[in-house]
């Protein structure tokens, strides 16, 4: 019984990470589908946005929600800048070229952040709501931070709105068409410029949102603090299958959950505790070798 309770506590403890990974993965997937590239700058943009929020809220005591909104607007502006000023201006940039550009952006942001905000770590954003909910059950207490609950609500709302937009609105249709082939989409009259630009804007805003949620939870703010989430977002995308929109999100739930569950197995043998991530990544590798298109992905027929 005590073990079951500790399992539940482990899971509630990892809920925040799961939410953050889900939101970040949504952004990565949007860009992967519309611009055909892995956006390595996602984490850096997110961190820059969080710096903006932290400084506005902490140093200049702007109202909390207003600060977050300004952070999101910053993210949107940054995303638009990348798509309109860089990707569209370059001539025949291929996929790897796009990846390198996002890498150059990482370099610029990592350089600019200490320059603008100073080298010291800014005060952490406080949790959205302090305190814990606890329920007595199974002869113990199951506790969950109120912050995680708020984040779950935000994540659920944001993802629901996005999925409704993706599958019910005209914009969503445009994204899905562009995702299957940008060239053909252009021919049949989709304004792919608008589609990619809005995708970049939304993706960057999602990145900032994810980073703010993580930072307010419990993570010290450095320019590279989102890199870990970003890496697991990529893996989640591969695990779920980038060919669908829902797959990566499910992958984003599975990976952090699996890591905490394997870590929980540490009560059997401490081995699991210290090797949780390695074990999960190896399982992931095997899963993808068996199903290269991802767990929920569609098989894409290859033309020769």
């Amino acid at each position: 019984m005590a073990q079951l309770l500790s399992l539940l506590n482990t899971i509630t403890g990892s809920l925040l990470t799961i939410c953050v990974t889900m939101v970040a993965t949504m952004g990565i997937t949007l860009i992967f589908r519309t611009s055909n590239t892995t956006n390595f700058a996602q984490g850096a943009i997110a961190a820059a946005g969080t710096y903006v929020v932290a400084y506005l809220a902490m140093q200049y005591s702007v109202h909390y929600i207003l600060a977050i909104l300004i952070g999101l607007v910053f993210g949107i502006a940054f995303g638009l800048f990348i798509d309109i000023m860089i990707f569209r201006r370059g001539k025949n940039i291929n996929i790897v070229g796009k990846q390198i550009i996002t890498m150059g952006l990482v370099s610029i942001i990592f350089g600019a952040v200490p320059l603008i905000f100073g080298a010291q770590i800014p005060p952490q954003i406080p949790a959205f709501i302090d305190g814990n909910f606890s329920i007595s059950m199974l002869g113990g207490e199951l506790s969950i931070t109120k912050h995680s609950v708020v984040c779950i609500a935000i994540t659920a709302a944001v993802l629901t709105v996005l999925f409704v937009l993706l599958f019910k609105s005209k914009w969503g249709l445009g994204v899905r068409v562009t995702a299957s082939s940008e060239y053909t989409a252009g021919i049949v009259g989709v304004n792919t410029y608008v589609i990619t630009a809005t995708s970049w804007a939304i993706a960057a805003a999602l990145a900032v949102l994810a980073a703010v949620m993580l930072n307010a939870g419990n993570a010290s703010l450095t320019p590279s603090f989102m890199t870990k989430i970003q890496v697991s977002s990529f893996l989640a995308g591969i695990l779920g299958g980038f060919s669908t929109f829902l797959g990566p999100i499910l992958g984003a739930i599975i990976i952090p959950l699996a890591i905490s569950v394997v870590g929980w197995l540490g009560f059997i043998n401490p081995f699991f505790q210290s090797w949780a991530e390695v074990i999960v990544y190896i399982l992931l590798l095997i899963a993808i070798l068996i199903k290269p298109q991802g767990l929920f992905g569609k098989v894409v027929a290859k033309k020769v």
Partner: protein
Amino acid sequence: MNNRFKNEYLAHTSPRPESGWKAHAKRIMSNPLGQFGLLGLLLAITQLLNIAGIVPRSIMTTIAFVSIYSIAAIGFCLLLGYSGLASLGTAGFMGLGIYLCHYGLQEWQISILPAFLIAGIASIVIGFVVGFVSLRIEGIYLAIMTLALSEIIVKLLKTIKGSTLIIRGVNLNFFGIPLSNNAVYFTIIVVLVMLLVGTANLINSPTGRAMVAMKSSVAAAQAMGISLLKYRLLAFIISTLFAGIAGFFYHAYLPGISPTTATILTLSMSLNILGAVIIGGAKSLWGTLVGTFVIYGFQSIFLQNIAFFNENPAFMMMVTGVLIILVVMFYPGGFAQMLFTFRLWLKKMTKKWRIYRYGIEE
């Protein structure tokens, strides 16, 4: 009689074999051994100048690191530019070299050559694994899978050993003869030149051509009888081996630094190598060398001497970033393409000048 005329005719028409030191030099410089050998010689001379006290120590360190990263970049160039396979696992593969260098020299107390061989064999094994993965998955998916593999390796290493690695100087020995920092530097240069020449020759061999064919079209290459299994495995084995060697020398050259793994074994390390290859020109070894220099050496050799950048080190990173973006935006083929365009332009200009000067067209 007939023969005499023939010889006379031949002597008039065929170009006379050039002689003298100029022709000799030209012949030597036209093969990779000559070109890269000269580069190695120059790098070795810089070190001698440093020993003599002319070149400052900081420049030597930068050159050494550029050379070390170049080793990894060459392997990556072969993988990306010639075989068309993407990888984001360079950091993990280099990490393997770093940790095995530490284990060999510090914990097992063996000399540098066997430790090097162990690191090499381990890298080959990892390359084998990645090669098999690459048979199932392609493109960006493959790149992300290698990222996962690299994460596994790094986590594994950090869980086993932690991130503090120190080799005491005494343990850096070649069968009992202690090695100084300078000796390691010369070894790095020799290895770099050997690998460069080897890679250049490999590219021009049937193996290299098979790899290029595989890059252009997998289906067509298979139809021509090229075994994907063989060449993909080979490409990945070479690439991870080179990365492992680079990691080994990274630690051997900087034996006293402990927190290296925390800072270098990250995604951005792999991305930097990728960037070096791309901005240099993915299908050119010289381009790769220049690209590596721009990413790793440009900051500390040039920008640091400008007062403005020295006072604001954050700007240096930004300049590198902007440079990378501009190169990829306007010259997708990297510096190699830039040089090519410049040559064409020069040729055109010379022709124009000749027409203007002599009024004739060749």
